[in-house]
């Protein structure tokens, strides 16, 4: 039998008063049942998560939304991040011009420390096996009267994160909750707050727990999300809550990174402000080595190679490590394979350098090699595993995945962060459209605009990087090597094809 409704039993109270009473009772009586309601809850405070927050806060259409961000690291430390002018973090990314224009449009680019970022206008890419090369040089495309076009802009991730945090702070803290030093303890569906409250049974409700010293004293918070955004990386908890599977594989390769100081270039660049990025494919060693410019003759190294080689490189004393890096841009595959196996000992730290000097005398050097690396910044040699992942979907009711939670790709084209920020640009535009058209921002009909805009481009670029990785992992002078050199040679000689490729790489 249906219970007698409360409305019948209650004596008459005018509607306005009743509203006040019931609101008060809900807050007091059923505290555990009714979570705080947010429009957007973003899990993860990396460049993608913070970029989304800054984009939403910067747009007049979405600035009124109630938003929250949950990050396990200390965001105050990230905001106060600072390094000596000549020191550079080893976590560096290249921003394509379209990413830069997105960052400008949300007002974050001006908060970057410009003395720590470096544009480059030329890119030299060649095959260590066959010697065939392609140069991405915008100075041929532009007239002498205009500024040289930028291929990409190098920035430390910490500089970018700090810029985004400063921009978010700039935009005020109304309707904004930053849960720093906090983790998501659980995500579950809400409940139907009958009869007075709304039905939250399709809303994700997160329990946010503080970490560190505050964990003892502060009680966990429960927050409900109209739209829950997973910007929480490759092992995304939001993605597993949404039960979205991923496809992918591990490359069995590691990326060795380091911050290097370079020699003065043998011939000064022309024009003087022109900087060049270098990448040489090393089929015999498992992947390309890249040297990307940082300010003041510094460079960041990304060397994709097998885990054994990566471990060997990390174990070398500094002079031997530098000799290996310089050798990798100069010597042929046989010499490199030999040097990768040389016994190293701290007493005999010049053996690699001697080997390089002797072998380089007998190797014809191409013209495009980078200046020699002269020093490694202490503590910057590190490595990370290379993986490919692509989520089966980016969206689910009241859920959207961005950045690494949705896709992880091979870093050889430096596109990972750019794809993540392109996701964020698209999702923030989708949310703006939804708000201005009365749509529910967590509804599938809203979110499908985002996923249809981003899924194919991400799959295309991730697939292209995967294909390049596989093509340049076939050692020897076989048909694949021939096809590679033919392909690169043809592209390099056809200006319009090349310019098309360069524009694609830029993200236009």
């Amino acid at each position, binding site marked *: 039998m*249906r219970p007698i*409704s409360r*409305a*019948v039993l209650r004596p*008459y*109270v005018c*509607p306005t008063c*009743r*509203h006040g009473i019931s609101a008060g009772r809900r807050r007091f009586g059923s505290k555990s049942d009714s979570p705080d*309601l947010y429009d957007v809850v973003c899990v993860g405070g990396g460049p993608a998560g913070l970029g989304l927050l800054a984009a939403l806060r910067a747009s007049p*259409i979405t600035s*009124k939304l109630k938003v929250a961000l949950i990050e396990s690291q200390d965001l105050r430390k990230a905001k106060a991040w600072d390094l000596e002018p000549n020191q550079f973090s080893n976590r560096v990314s290249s921003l394509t011009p379209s990413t830069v224009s997105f960052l400008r449009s949300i007002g974050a680019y001006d908060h970057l420390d410009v003395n720590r970022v470096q544009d480059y206008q030329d890119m030299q890419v060649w095959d260590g096996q066959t010697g065939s090369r392609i140069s991405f040089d915008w100075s041929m495309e532009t007239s002498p009267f205009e500024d040289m076009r930028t291929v990409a802009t190098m920035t430390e991730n910490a500089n970018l994160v700090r810029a985004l945090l400063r921009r978010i702070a700039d935009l005020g803290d109304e309707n904004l909750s930053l849960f720093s030093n906090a983790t998501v303890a659980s*995500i*579950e*569906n809400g409940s139907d707050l009958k009869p007075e*409250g*709304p*039905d*939250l*049974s*399709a*809303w*994700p409700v997160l329990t946010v727990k503080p970490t560190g010293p505050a964990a003892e004293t502060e009680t966990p918070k429960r927050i409900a999300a*109209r739209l829950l955004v997973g910007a929480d990386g490759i092992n995304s908890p939001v993605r*597993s*809550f*949404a*039960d979205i599977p991923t496809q992918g594989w591990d490359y069995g390769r590691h990326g060795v990174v380091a911050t290097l100081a370079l020699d003065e270039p043998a011939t000064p660049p022309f024009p003087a402000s022109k900087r060049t990025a270098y990448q040489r494919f090393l089929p015999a060693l498992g992947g390309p080595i890249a040297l990307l410019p940082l300010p003041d003759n510094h460079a960041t190294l990304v060397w994709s190679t097998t885990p054994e080689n990566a471990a060997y490189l990390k174990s070398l004393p500094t002079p031997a490590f530098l000799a290996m890096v310089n050798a990798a841009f100069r010597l042929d595959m046989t010499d490199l394979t030999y040097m990768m196996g040389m016994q190293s000992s701290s007493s005999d730290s010049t053996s690699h350098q001697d080997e390089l000097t002797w072998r380089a005398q007998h190797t014809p050097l191409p013209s495009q090699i980078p200046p020699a690396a002269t020093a490694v910044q202490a503590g910057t040699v590190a490595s990370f595993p290379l993986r490919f992942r692509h989520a089966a979907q980016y969206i*689910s*009711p*009241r*859920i959207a995945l961005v950045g690494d939670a949705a896709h992880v790709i091979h870093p050889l084209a430096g596109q990972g962060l750019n794809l993540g920020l392109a996701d964020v640009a698209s999702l923030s535009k989708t949310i703006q*459209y939804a*708000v*201005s*058209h*009365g*749509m*529910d921002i967590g*509804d*599938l*009909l809203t979110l*499908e605009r985002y996923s249809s805009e981003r899924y194919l481009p991400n799959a295309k670029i991730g697939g292209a990087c995967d294909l390049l990785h596989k093509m340049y992992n076939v050692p020897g002078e076989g048909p694949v090597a021939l096809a590679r050199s033919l392909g690169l040679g043809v592209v390099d000689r056809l200006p319009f094809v090349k310019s098309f490729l360069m524009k694609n790489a830029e993200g236009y």
Partner: protein
Amino acid sequence: MASLRPRALPLSVRTLRSALSSTRPSPNHFLSAPASTQTRAHSTSSVSADELSHFSALASSWWDPMGHSRILHLMNPLRHEFIASCLAEGTSSPSQNPSSTSTPSTATLNYLDVGCGGGIFAESLARTIPLDPTGPAPTPTLAASMTAIDPSTDLIQMAREHARMDPTVHEHLRTGRFKYLNTTLEDVLAGNAVTLTPASSSTAASTPNPSSPSTQPAPQYDVVTLFEVLEHIDPKTSTPLSFLTNCLRALKPGGWLIGSTISRTLPSFILNQVIAEAPWPIGVVPRGTHEWSKFVNPGEVKGWLQEGLMRAADTGVSRGGSAIAEGMRWKCVGAIYIPGIGWKMVPGSEDWGNYFWAVRKEI
């Protein structure tokens, strides 16, 4: 983790039934016949009984984004854009002056959505009503309140259930800025509909409205919307002309009557009857949704509205009827659905199928 997944379609038939049984019957239901679905379709209404049962049967999938109504859901943002383009030309509210665009407008317009169905448009507009009525309007539709009516009990019940799943919309339902009424336009005009609001039914404090049909209440609405309704009018009990006249009567002077419908031409027959209602995977709307013979052409709508404006003006406004018809502000633009891309407004495509139209009641 599978059990934690958000339900894609939280509204099952069972919850619908329980929602029906838990609502306290309104006085009108006691007075009327026991068959709940058909009660509101009495002889004075423009609503066809066949149409009513067809759409009530579709209720369970109304809000499924991949279901029968997907094409309507996709069209919804265009409705907002079309309304915004009309309001940019002027509104019935004196405070909304189009020339003073420098200051953000406050939301002052009262909407009436006739034939709201499951509430696809009504709920989306209610979402744009600001929680703080004095704050700036978040969208150019400037909604301050929304009253949505439909003769189908099932659909109104389902619309209310669905609205509870959005706390913002739910709050507007509680405060009465957003209302779903299971009634007809004729009853709204006669002033009989107010007793049906959920707020008054729960307090049981409402007294029967003593207004007699002879006294016309002052028009209350700044915008009356009529989306995909004209083509579902029952020719046996009503005519589009009398129906549109009633819509105009609900409008304040300077207000807009805005709608969309489908034209009765050869291309629209092929698109809407042959292709759109074809079996899966070609078709996008359920078979029997449309009757081509009921479709109306832009010229017909325009003619009825001219006539309707004159008839509506008979009750009290001093200006002559023909002057009103001549100075009628009329807008019309076609809309085309392109699979894979979505709905697009295409001026000049009014005769191909779907089109939006609007008319402003002169001040």
